[in-house]
């Protein structure tokens, strides 16, 4: 049960990664960067990446019964 | 000086009988037809005894009893609860809320008068 839930959460995270760090999100942030003249894209990419790792850590380190 | 009794019930015929019985026992009688009227009557001059029906519209007997016992100046007032619901849990609840007696309807008129006299310390 817990494994299934974990699998679903990780799947959702995977989709999120695709969504936030793929086209078109990256294109939008890139345009924003051109517009603002500030380094928004590197912060966005690394920030999102870090948050997804954090979420994965939270999901995977949940205490669960040992098999 | 005559003791004062407040009869609280929503059944006119029962009020009529209680009023008759208490007057005959030598008490001064006042009548209230529901809980709210009863509390209003107490505000004036608290009676020595309350004959309190449980199942009434507005405020029921339990609530009236509880409110009376929350007011220290009304502590001297004795309460006899009258109810047509005779289950033990209800009796316990009435006594826990501070009623002095708990009488199930229909009651014996002699016993009721006896208990009232006892509570009021009248021989």
């Amino acid at each position, binding site marked *: 049960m817990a494994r299934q839930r974990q699998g679903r959460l990780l799947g959702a995270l995977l989709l999120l990664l695709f969504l936030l760090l793929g086209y078109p999100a990256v294109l939008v942030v890139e345009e924003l960067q051109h517009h603002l003249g500030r380094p928004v894209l590197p912060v966005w990419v690394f920030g999102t990446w870090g948050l997804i790792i954090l979420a994965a850590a939270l999901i995977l380190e949940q205490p669960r019964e040992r098999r | 000086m005559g003791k004062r009794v407040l009869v609280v019930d929503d059944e006119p015929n029962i009020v009529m009988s209680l009023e008759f019985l208490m007057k005959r026992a030598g008490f001064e009688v006042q009548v209230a037809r529901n809980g709210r009227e009863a509390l209003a009557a107490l505000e004036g001059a608290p009676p020595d005894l309350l004959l309190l029906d449980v*199942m009434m519209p507005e405020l029921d007997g339990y609530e009236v009893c509880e409110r009376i016992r929350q007011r220290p100046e009304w502590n001297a007032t004795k309460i006899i609860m009258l109810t047509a619901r005779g289950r033990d849990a209800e009796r316990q609840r009435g006594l826990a809320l501070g009623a002095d007696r708990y009488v199930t309807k229909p009651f014996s*008129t002699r016993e009721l008068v006896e208990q009232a006299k006892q509570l009021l310390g009248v021989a």
Partner: protein
Amino acid sequence: MLPAGLVLLLSLAYLVGLFAIASWGDRRAEAGRSLIANPLVYTLSLAVYCTAWTFYGSVGLAGTGGLAFLPVYLGPTLVCLLFPLLLHKMVHTAKAYGITSIADFLAARFGKSAALAGLVTIVAAIAVLPYIALQLKAVSASIAVATGLSAEVGAPGLGIDTALLVAILMAAFAVLFGTRHIDAAEHHPGMVLAVAFESTVKLLTFLIAGTIIVYGLFDGFGDIFARALDAELGHLLDVSGPGFSHADWLLLTLLSAAAFLVLPRQFQVAVIENVDPDHIRRASWLMPLYLLLINLFVLPVAIAGVLLSGRPDDMTVLILAERTGLDWLVMLVFLGGLSAATAMIIVESVALATMISNDLVIPVLLRWPALGFAQRPDLSGVVLLVRRAGIVVLLLLGYGFYRLVGTGYGLVGIGLIAFCGVAQFVPPILAALYVRDANLTGAMIGLAGGFLVWLYTLVLPAMIPPDSALLTAGPFGIGLLRPQALLGLELLNPVSHALVWSWTVNLGGLLLGSLLATQSDLERVQALQFVDVYQRAGVTRPWHGEARVEDLRALLARFLGKRRADAALALDARQRGRTAAGNASADAALVQLAERQLARAIGTASARVMVASVVRGEVVGPQEVMEILDEASQIMEYSRRLEQKSRELEAATAELRQANERLRQLDHMKDEFIATVSHELRTPLTSIRSFSEILRDVPDLAEDERAQFLDVLVKESERLTRLINDILDVSKIEAGKMDWHLSRFDLDAVIEDAIAATAGLFRERGIVIERRLAGGLPEIEADRDRLQQVVINLLSNAAKFVPEKGGRVIVTSGVEDGVVTFAIADNGPGIPAQYLQTIFERFHQVGDTLTSKPKGTGLGLTICRHIVEHFGGRIWAESPPGQGAVFRFVLPVATPLARAAE
């Protein structure tokens, strides 16, 4: 600049240190206190993914393409999120069947096919060779930068070709720590520990160098980014640029995800060297974290390089380290790069050498009768020798590649070519794990097709001049066949382009082959064993062969050596509690054990051939397949039924809980009902008893009082009787035991009768009653007396609530839409909206505000509702504000059909 001698000395010292660590790791593991049995070391060993490409090449690429270097690390992050499912299954499978490499894995799944194993090995070797060359190139370039000497052979300086020296040293290391035992499935704890150490070194050195460059040479990230924007280098902060689109971003992410899974060295550390599948869980997020950290400084350092030296360069980190003037930092960076390169070379060459020996050389040797190889008594030495030779040859080939073609390309470019080559393993691997019907033909066609497309679209263009006619005009002038714009696909960069086409052909081949060809019997067995590995590992296969224990022992001894063969058989005997007598015939489990032991040494395909040579009659036939299929379907059927049972159980539990809840509610309702009935009965009884006692006990009662009390007695007795009648009616109706007397009648007549019956009551209270009857209503069919009871009830109800003076009641009847309607309106106080529904419930009046009025039984309206509904009608109340109450009911007109039936 550092003195060349110092660089050489420190490099050697570092490598010696690495030897020491590896050797320590091996000794500790042999002593049973392994240092690698924890998720952190496992993660660090996975970081062998980060090679000199990462350490040097990313910075070089970022100097021209900006953030375009990142997909190579986002891809692994992506695939890591799948690790708890995907890698776990791969590890579990590899352990269950003694898999030695990715070639072995695929071959075993597709019917223990030697041909597939060979093909995978060839693809892997060709794809990875440039990758090894890349490492050698990076190391010699870094030595050149660090010492200021040229890396060219024959140039003045070290007097030795540094790349060759590195290749030889690496080969020695790999031979020593990668081929100590013949059993390839056994772990190499020393090697893994050394790799983990190297991963730590490269990460720390890069972080240190990055911090010093960004905060020493500049004022931090913000400063560098701001200067980049000032210097018109804004494109370095972008993802897209010339030759790199957002589609490329996505495709390179996918490509890297694929490579992270199937590169031979990744398969080696992630699957073969895994000591505990549970480590995968933590590695799944630690690994992405490692990748994020090692990339943190790549972009700022690359920009810093362009700002300071004016051009991007693969060696930017080293060049900038020299700019700081700190010699120790230069040395540190150099060692970091060296560790990144050596870790890759060692693991990759060990993994590939195992594949080359098990899946290419040994099968050929065994199948070539002229060599007499198959008859030699002890082959373990030969196997080891082949493997060691494989390592040396690989590194020399890598060196050769570097010398011949390698110098013209950037590090990342070479690496991506390799990625795309090994990515061809992804479709068959996924099919192997999850698609039972994928077959050998499909895997072979797909892999070969994808490989050829890769060669044509990516490798070939890299080998010829970029302006050659083949690239610009296409072969024979056919533009649609241009290698970098196949079928006119020109939007993508060359790597993405190659990936799209090679995967398309690969998948297409796999699909087509699997649809057209049928699986052999052995393949079907293996497919089941892989796809359902969690249910099936450890299940003994049925078998019908015959073999002697002694023959198996001899076979094992030839490849593993006598000592290890005896040990394996003895262990098995002990575990199963019996002695392995020499002449006894072996059972299925023992044969399987022998095959698995052998597979660990020489690969699945060869092991199968060897075991078959000593076993008679063990043919995998339709019968065996049927048994296994049967077993599989039984297992699945069983688990399906189990699931269904548990679902049913859950449903039943829920139903029970619901029923229980309903019962509790009913119980409570019954309790309430009884309490209410008791209350309703006791109330008139109380009056009756009190006044009876008063009449008895008070002889001197005044005459008017006596009359009044007697009147009360009569009224309360009547009330009691009514109440009892009503209660009986309600319970009869609700229990369905009421006797209904059906007849046809006119509603108006019933209304007239009811009004006549209550006329006394109305007259007494001076209430005006107005009739608005329709006349000539269609007949209805019901119990006339009961319906009259309803109307009387409603009339007396109205009489009760109208004001004492000026009371007024209007009774209406009519017909519409097949129903006869009735309404009675009064000018009383009306009914609060919240009670319009509830007044029809039993004893509703108890506790409501209307009780100052004369009491009814509290059951009248309930009875009315029951009666009306029994005859298919509906009753309800309305109370427009300030206009009193209206009670209405409708009853269906009697049907002609019913009339005919009469």
